[in-house]
């Protein structure tokens, strides 16, 4: 029976009231009981399993005062068109009270192709900003002081190269790298699992990632060289528990590789950061974040012997769930985003991106992007939720769900250990299949109206189109002209020398960051550098799991 036509149940005398459904589950399909009580927590050692915020096992938060000391960073993901277009949007968002930058790159950039490559046709500037060289990066951060603004860059396979460009811009601005604050997504494992923006095969890709860990530890102590991500895993259709488990297991894989490189855990683990989804099921999200902190603490101390507090205190960015946004009745998305953002805040996120109402249709208009930012500001300043730490701590429901999610995640982690680790699991298609199955199960439940999506399979109505952002083909034309000029004005001999040296180094085991940095400063393009590495590393093709 459709949700908008249900009768009010009337119990007979002495009977328990009938419920609206035979069972209640989270959006992920996890069963939820009608009432949680002290009995659910019998045997639960709160002193050991919760402790205080800012102290092991960090369940309640990684700082003692959390938002009372400092609000989460309002870090809105933005990027479209040319570097100049995005620079304008960045500077606008900073004037509107955004506290950190987050760069969205276009698909050619994400996949290591210059804007004038044949495969870039139709794609330039459409999903993010087009960056083909250091010249574009310089334009992107024009009038933005990298010494005082922290920047997150959502880039994976070519992350080392975009990072080198960022470092070069900082150097030109006269900013000491030791002061640079920011994050590189650079989480290649989740690309094979979910986001699919891989270029090279797993082993050379991991080598590049560990090169960035090493380089960051030495040169950029305030920069997170990785954002180990669950967001995309959830977006691809996983359950919340799978998101939690696969993300932490990816983290374990990175730490193992770092240790195998010869790095001391406490030298690089403090710079590892995380990125989780903030989906619709409010309490499932809060429990997930709390379980993540506790499980990471236990993993880092028990499995890797980390000694520093900062090595085992999980810091995370959250983004509200893009996959929950509807094309129908797009203003409903403002409400979804607000509730999702609230969950992230109640769960102790360090930074947050809120989606715009129009993102099922296009990249955000300025109006929609502003409203998304205001959503965070209203939560921070008007609702009171930032006044105390971990407000749901002690809730029978939330503590039980936290415990259950931790235990369920451990099962998945053990399974992946048994398969030989995450890379082995990926090669066997294991996380990909889990995600595809979960995504299909969810779609079936939506098609059957077991899961209601307001405005889509219930409460649907007449649609009024909204104004959306359009990005034309002129960006590709402009970029092609810019690249022509760049190639004419730089020393092509120097570029050839740098690329040859990079190719040679890539065949060995030395850290590639210094080579990439030199190539970038000689104005070798992104495509040229990625192609040099393609020659040495080869490219990855996945065996699709449907």
């Amino acid at each position, binding site marked *: 029976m459709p949700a908008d036509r249900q009768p009010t149940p009337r119990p007979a005398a002495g009977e328990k009231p009938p419920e609206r459904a035979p069972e209640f589950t989270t959006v992920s399909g996890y069963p939820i009981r009608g009432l949680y009580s002290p009995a659910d927590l019998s045997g639960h050692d709160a002193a050991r399993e919760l402790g205080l915020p800012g102290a092991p096992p960090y369940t309640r938060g990684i700082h003692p005062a959390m938002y009372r000391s400092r609000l989460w960073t309002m870090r809105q993901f933005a990027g479209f068109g040319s570097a100049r277009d995005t620079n304008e949007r960045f500077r606008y968002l900073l004037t509107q009270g955004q506290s950190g930058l987050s760069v969205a790159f276009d698909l050619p950039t994400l996949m290591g*192709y210059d804007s004038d490559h044949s*495969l870039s046709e139709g794609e330039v500037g*459409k999903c993010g900003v087009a960056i083909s060289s250091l010249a574009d990066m310089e334009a992107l951060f024009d009038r933005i002081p990298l010494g005082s603004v922290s920047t997150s860059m959502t880039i994976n396979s070519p992350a080392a190269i975009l990072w080198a460009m960022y470092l070069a811009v900082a150097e030109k601005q006269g900013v000491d790298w030791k002061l640079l604050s920011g994050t590189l997504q650079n989480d290649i494992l989740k690309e094979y699992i979910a986001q699919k*923006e891989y270029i090279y095969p797993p082993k050379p890709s991991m080598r590049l990632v560990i090169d960035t860990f090493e380089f960051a530890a030495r040169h950029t102590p305030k920069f997170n060289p990785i954002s180990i991500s669950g967001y995309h895993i959830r977006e*691809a259709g996983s359950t919340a528990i799978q998101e939690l488990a696969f993300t932490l297991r990816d983290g374990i894989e990175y730490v193992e590789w770092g240790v195998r490189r010869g790095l001391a855990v406490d030298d690089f683990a403090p710079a590892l950061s995380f990125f989780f989804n903030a989906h619709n099921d409010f309490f499932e999200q809060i429990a997930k974040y709390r379980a993540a902190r506790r499980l990471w603490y236990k993993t880092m101390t028990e499995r890797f012997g980390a000694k520093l507090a900062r090595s085992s205190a999980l810091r995370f960015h959250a983004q509200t769930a893009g*996959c929950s946004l509807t094309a*129908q009745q797009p203003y409903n998305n403002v409400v979804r985003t607000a509730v999702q953002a609230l969950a992230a805040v109640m769960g102790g996120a360090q930074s947050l991106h809120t989606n715009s109402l129009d993102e099922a249709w296009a990249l955000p208009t300025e109006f929609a992007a502003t409203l998304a930012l205001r959503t965070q500001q209203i939560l921070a300043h008007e609702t009171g939720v930032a006044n105390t730490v971990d407000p749901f701590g002690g809730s029978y429901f939330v503590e039980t769900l936290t415990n259950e999610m931790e235990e369920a995640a451990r099962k998945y982690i053990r399974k992946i250990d048994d398969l030989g680790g995450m890379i082995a699991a990926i090669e066997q298609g294991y996380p990909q299949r889990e995600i595809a199955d979960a*995504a299909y199960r969810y*779609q079936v439940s939506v098609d059957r109206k077991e899961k209601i999506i307001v405005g889509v399979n219930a409460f649907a109505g007449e649609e009024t189109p909204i104004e959306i952002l359009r990005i034309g083909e002129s960006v590709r034309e402009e970029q092609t002209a810019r690249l022509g000029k760049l190639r004419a004005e730089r020393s092509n001999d120097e570029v050839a020398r740098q690329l040859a040296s990079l190719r040679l180094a890539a065949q060995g085991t030395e850290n590639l960051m210094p080579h990439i940095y030199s190539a970038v400063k000689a104005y070798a393009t992104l495509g040229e550098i990625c192609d040099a590495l393609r020659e040495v590393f080869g490219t990855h093709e996945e065996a699709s799991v449907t």
Partner: protein
Amino acid sequence: MPAEKRIRVLIAKPGLDGHDRGAKIIARALRDAGMEVIYTGLRQTPEMIASAAVQEDVDVIGLSILSGAHNTLVPQLLELLKQKGMGDVTVLLGGTIPEADISGLKKAGVAEIFLPGTSTQDIVDFVKNRAAK
């Protein structure tokens, strides 16, 4: 009882877009509904898709594009299909397609566009009804 020829569907991901959740769900739903489904995998050029369509002798091509590149890639594919004598194949499109682009794409030859929120049953029914014509 005469053997019914199963509807053959190619599900394709044109361009650089790697978002395959929808494409994979549709592939599975059509398979569950009794169709022969071939999924091309990611990052297919229009040439690769057209060649696969010929090779697999499909009745339907389902394209999934969330990258905004549809106005470039879809007309290119439609032109290639015509050149290869596959102009009769039913071409369907889903993904992030602005309302304003729909009529242009249909005029170019896309049979139907399925926006976010479409149920898999609606797509199954459309393909079956189309095949019955």
